């Protein structure tokens, strides 16, 4: 079995200010070499805080994180040699060109002039950036800047790469390009931990993923395992004009053997069912009395897994 690269144990982070916020509430995770691991959760679930602690930019309230066996709190400077980070926002050095961003990053990690130059040129070629080597970051589009950030993050050949919401703010085309860049890293044997609130991204990129919310891991496994365990369900989301007298309908639906759960929501009704055969007409008929405005059907996917686990929509 591949060696453990990231070990997160009983990690908590509490921000004590006017408002006490428990950002991370006892997370345990283990990543093995070469896997692409997704942290999936809505905004504010604790993903970025977890990454910040693992990458030595925040201190945990309790618990430990080891990267390649090195405790990140006790030996942050040493741990950083194994860590590559692609932050949520563009943090490229605005005073340096694209080439210089890569070159000096290598120098920060102890490369000689010749090594740093060779590595920077190699990365420019690998990420199709050679033509833009003398451009300054302020002139780059979001997608290109993200590519430079990924190139920079792996320049010192880290053992593990952290990608924090890598596709936030990217257009669909750049997102696809970013995905293929991450897929490409798999060949280099780099372990990747990425956070996202895009289901498709988590589903298509990760070998394994953890769904987290309110600072806790709710489910852990490969996308297929998660779908098989929690998500072989279809979700019906109904928006209704009137909610008066809805309880008996909810109770009737709940009583059906093919319905897993039925509940009233703020503006309608949500039904989760193992099979949709024959159910749809009955639901529509029951709802029509309340003025059905809209109906959304979500086929079994990570999204239904997520909604079932957290009771809320990722995009809320």
């Amino acid at each position, binding site marked *: 079995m591949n060696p453990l690269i990231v070990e997160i144990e009983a990690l908590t982070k509490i921000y004590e200010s006017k408002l006490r916020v428990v950002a991370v509430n006892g997370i345990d995770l283990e990543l093995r070499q070469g896997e692409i691991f997704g942290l999936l959760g809505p905004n504010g679930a604790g993903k970025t805080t977890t990454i910040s602690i693992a*990458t*030595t930019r925040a201190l945990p309230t309790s618990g430990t994180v080891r990267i390649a066996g090195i405790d990140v709190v006790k030996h942050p*400077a040493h741990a*950083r040699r194994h860590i590559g980070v692609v932050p949520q926002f*563009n943090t490229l050095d605005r005073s*340096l060109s694209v080439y210089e961003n890569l070159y000096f990053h290598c*120098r*920060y*990690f102890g490369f000689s002039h010749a090594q740093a130059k060779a590595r920077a040129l190699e990365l420019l070629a690998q990420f199709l950036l050679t033509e833009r080597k003398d451009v300054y970051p302020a002139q780059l589009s979001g997608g290109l800047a993200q590519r430079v950030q990924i190139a*920079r993050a792996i320049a010192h050949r880290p053992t593990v790469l952290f990608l924090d919401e890598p596709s936030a703010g990217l257009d669909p085309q750049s997102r696809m390009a970013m995905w293929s860049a991450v897929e490409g890293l798999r060949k280099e044997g780099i372990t990747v931990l990425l956070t996202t609130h895009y289901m498709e991204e988590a589903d298509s990129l990760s070998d394994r993923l953890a769904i987290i919310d309110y600072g806790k891991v709710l489910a852990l496994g490969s996308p297929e395992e998660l779908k098989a365990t929690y998500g072989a369900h279809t979700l019906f989301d109904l928006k209704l004009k009137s909610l008066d007298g809805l309880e008996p309908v909810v109770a009737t639906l709940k009583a059906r053997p093919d319905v897993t759960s039925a509940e009233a929501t703020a503006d309608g009704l949500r039904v989760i069912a193992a099979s949709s055969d024959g159910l749809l007409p009955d639901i529509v008929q029951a709802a029509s009395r309340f003025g059905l405005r809209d109906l959304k059907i979500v086929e079994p996917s990570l999204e239904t897994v997520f909604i079932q686990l957290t009771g809320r929509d990722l995009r809320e």
Partner: protein
Amino acid sequence: MNNSTEIRGQGSEIRTVGPHGSGIFLKAFLGLFLRDLRVLTREFLPFLLRVGMQPLLFLFVFTFILPRMGGANPMGGGMSGGVDFGTIILPGLMAVAIMFSGIAAVALPLSAEFGITREIDDRVMCPLPLWAVALEKVCFSAMQSIIAALLVIPMAYYIPAVPVRANVDNWFLLALVLVLASLLAGSLGLVIGSTVNPKQIGLVFSILVVPITFLGCVYYPWAGLVKHIPWLSIAVLFNPIVYMSEGLRASVTPSIEHMHWAAILVALVFFTCALGSWGLRGFLGRVLS
């Protein structure tokens, strides 16, 4: 394909035979320094203008124009036993050059990098303890401060109507004062850069930098205050710029009455340590949550 495996071979070599322990720290520190040097050399002319314009104009107005207008110079002779104003303000202008370039080299870039772009993140993620990242900023700014201070000397030789009477007896003291004063200015820059909101950085100049300059024994020797305005001579002792000006006075124009060199050095070291640790705390607070 062949090519890429070869490159990977090089990579693992870097990892296995690469520098360990303090070796990597030193190289990372050097890398940061080289980065700053690259940015500075690209903007060398603006840098020279930034640090040179103020002393140039100051010398031109007060030691060239006003003396030529005869009695119009209110600060002309009469002070410190007939010493010309140029000789009095040469060390003072060097101190101001040191302080301004220290603040410009640390506080302004830091407050921008801490701001919306978070550019500091990549340098914070290099394999160095965080205090060393802050120390690099201070050291680099010290280098700029020393250049800025030395730049004032030729100006003071060529511009004033009455020649400046500078004579350095003790080069060691001059070097020591220059280095300490420059580190002190960088530490002050670190405090400002890491504690002041980027939007208010302009305000800091008017409510902090300008007052400590004017009350920093730049345009008059401290001995003059002791003689004429004793209460002020005590009050300004809390101002680190005083020791920068007086230290340079002791080493560049020793003929003018100045504080004892030992007191100056102790004060410079004290303020550098105090401001440095305050600035470092601010820096850590900004990069580590």
